[in-house]
């Protein structure tokens, strides 16, 4: 979803040379609980997952989720806003206790930090007009049609770099609803978007249907935790499990992604 | 203080820059109140000799005594010594960021640690001595070359030096400004200030000097009273030099 900064590799190297002085007898989780505060890093420039509203308050799917997790741990969140590229280094060097910022698991990252269980998996959907007569049974099939996508999204990235769809077949839009309107009017044949907003759009605009859903452009999202911190990982994973069972996460997804 | 008739004494001074011998084996005795003029062609080490005498430049060998005490000895505080030896430079070297008064005062307040009010009184007095009390609040850039050089003299005098060194004090001046500086120096000579002057001003040398030293190629060729040197020079080189210089001086006069 986002890139790993080259600086992280540098940091890994140098920190191996310096080797951390090792924590005290108290575990990380105990320290967090004792302080009553968990320092959570996020890059608040990625709506709807984490962003600031116009009064400067942090909000978004990840933000609300983390606030709930902290509440159940009995602590408060102290948000530390950093550029995305600094977050892994921040966790790794103990400047923040963990980070939630729409992180996907990658092997590269797993070398230096740990990941919680996935808390959300963004599904993609292909949307067509109800009058569409073509045939889309597998993702690759869209390559032969005129496809619309919101510019700069993970779907845009997937269509351009993974599917390598010919440029003349790809239309990029500033907003998803613009693409949906063009889909209805027949200027494009297929539209690719996040599954939840795609469903909502189909309902709102009418005359559209979903022909395919699946995990294509981004993988499951995980909270980034310090390497080897099994105690904190367990505490967070347990709460995530509860939240999933209670339907809290689905509600949150509806709130943030369904428009 | 050691009992000695000499204020300043140099013994066998030699200065070498790399391969160049600037001067060699120079000895010099300066009596209290004496005005000595050093003459000679350019590049014969006269200016370097003055710089060596107040320790701005180290000598390679030889000794220098101030009031009988060796100042070239190990462990002597050079800053202390330089307070007692005033120096006036060819290109004035006033402190550009200070007024005439500030230039004269700063040595008193910062080096001698004199209270500012007292320093100001003394500085004004020194400026008066060189006839520039009315220019006290002018910056160097607002003064003529002659005025700047007179301030530089006042700056050196303010430190109450035992001896004053003048390194071609009028060479950088327009001809019409030379007189005012020489006038101040002449007045100092009359007040029996001990002075060592490197200059090409033969008129001044003849009128004011107690003794003239002719230097060439790093050595003292001849020395004596103005009459002896100008009227009865012993060495051919002295005669030749004086001939050339008076020709030049004469031309200047005509202009």
């Amino acid at each position, binding site marked *: 979803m986002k890139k790993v900064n080259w600086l992280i590799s540098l940091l890994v190297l140098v920190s191996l040379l*310096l080797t951390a002085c090792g924590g005290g007898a108290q575990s990380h989780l105990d320290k967090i609980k004792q302080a009553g505060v968990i320092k959570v890093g996020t890059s608040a420039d990625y709506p709807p997952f984490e*962003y600031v509203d116009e009064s400067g308050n942090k909000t978004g799917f990840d933000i609300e989720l983390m606030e709930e997790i902290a509440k159940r741990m009995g602590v408060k969140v102290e948000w530390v806003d950093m550029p995305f590229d600094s977050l892994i280094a921040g966790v790794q060097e103990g400047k923040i206790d963990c980070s939630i910022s729409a992180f996907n698991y990658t092997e590269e990252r797993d070398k230096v930090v740990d990941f919680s269980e996935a808390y959300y998996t963004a599904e993609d959907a292909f949307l067509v007009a109800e009058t569409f007569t073509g045939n889309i049974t597998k993702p690759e099939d869209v390559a032969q049609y005129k496809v619309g996508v919101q510019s700069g999204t993970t779907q845009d990235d997937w269509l351009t770099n993974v599917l390598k769809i010919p440029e003349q077949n790809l239309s990029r839009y500033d907003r998803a609803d613009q693409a949906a309107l063009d889909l209805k009017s027949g200027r494009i044949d297929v539209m690719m978007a996040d599954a939840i907003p795609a469903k909502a759009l189909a309902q709102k605009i009418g005359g559209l249907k979903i022909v395919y859903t699946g995990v294509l452009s981004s993988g499951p999202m995980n909270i980034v935790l310090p390497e080897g911190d099994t105690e904190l990982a367990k505490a967070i994973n347990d709460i995530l499990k509860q939240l999933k069972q209670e339907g809290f996460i689905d509600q949150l997804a509806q709130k943030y992604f369904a428009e | 203080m050691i009992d000695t008739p000499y204020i300043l004494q140099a013994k066998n001074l030699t200065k070498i820059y790399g391969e160049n011998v600037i001067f060699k084996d120079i000895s010099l005795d300066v009596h209290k109140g004496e005005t000595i003029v050093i003459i000679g062609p350019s590049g014969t080490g006269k200016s370097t000799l003055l710089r060596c005498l107040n320790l701005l430049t180290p000598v390679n060998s030889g000794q220098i005594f101030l009031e009988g005490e060796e100042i070239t000895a190990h462990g002597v505080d050079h800053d202390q010594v330089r307070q007692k030896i005033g120096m006036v430079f060819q290109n004035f070297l006033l402190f550009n960021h200070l007024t005439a008064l500030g230039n004269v005062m700063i040595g008193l307040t910062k080096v001698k640690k004199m209270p500012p009010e007292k320093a100001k009184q003394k500085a004004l007095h020194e400026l008066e001595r060189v006839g520039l009390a009315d220019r006290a609040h002018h910056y160097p850039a607002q003064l003529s070359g002659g005025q700047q050089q007179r301030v530089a003299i006042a700056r050196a005098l303010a430190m109450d030096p035992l001896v004053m060194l003048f390194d071609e004090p009028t060479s950088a001046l327009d001809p019409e400004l030379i007189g005012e500086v020489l006038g101040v120096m002449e007045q100092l000579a009359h007040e029996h200030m001990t002075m060592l002057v490197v200059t090409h001003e033969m008129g001044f040398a003849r009128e004011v000097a107690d003794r003239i030293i002719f230097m060439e190629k790093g050595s003292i060729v001849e020395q004596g009273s103005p009459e002896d040197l100008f009227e009865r020079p012993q060495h051919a080189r002295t005669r030749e030099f004086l001939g050339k210089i008076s020709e030049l001086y004469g031309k200047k006069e005509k202009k």
Partner: protein
Amino acid sequence: MVNQFFSYIFQGTSVTVAVTLVALPLGLILGLLLALLYNYGGFWVSRLAAAYSLIMRGVPPIALLFILYFLLSGRLINLTPFWAGSISLGIISSAYQMEILRGALQAVGEGQMTAARAIGMSRLQAIRYIIIPQAIRLAIPPWSNEASIVLKDSSLVYAIGVPEILRRAQQLSATTQQPFLAFGAAALIYFVLVFLVNRGLDLLAEKTKLPTSMA
């Protein structure tokens, strides 16, 4: 809305100003010390100062920031993001300020030192009372330039989580999809700050200017 929008970005100004107010004087003190060592420190000390300047001008500020904050802070020293950021920028700036000041010190000229020594001043007294007051005057215009650069470079501290003007603009740009408005507001604030700094230093230069004309 625009009002609120602008006010959120404007709140970053105090961070920008605070970082600059730490980095610039720190850079000045270090830079002056280094410039003096370079000019008066003798062969090896002077080489060391030159090497420092070369290295620090070659290091990307962000790399120094990361090294200081993520690697050294917590191990050797304990620094908050604000201090780590300000000190990093101060260190980088010290190399540039050293270059400015050593140029200015050299421009004052050997003669002033000679004249000061001739009235019995020590080297340190001469540097303090004669050389530095003149060098500072010469250094004000290029220094004003460096001040603007540090002011703008202070935005780098966002990389370790200090929310200054630029970071806030980024956030609002992401939220509102109005990058022109967000970055425009940030640019305006920077412009005003740089303008004030330059104007202030111009006035200082004017005030401390030595008269040049013959009166």
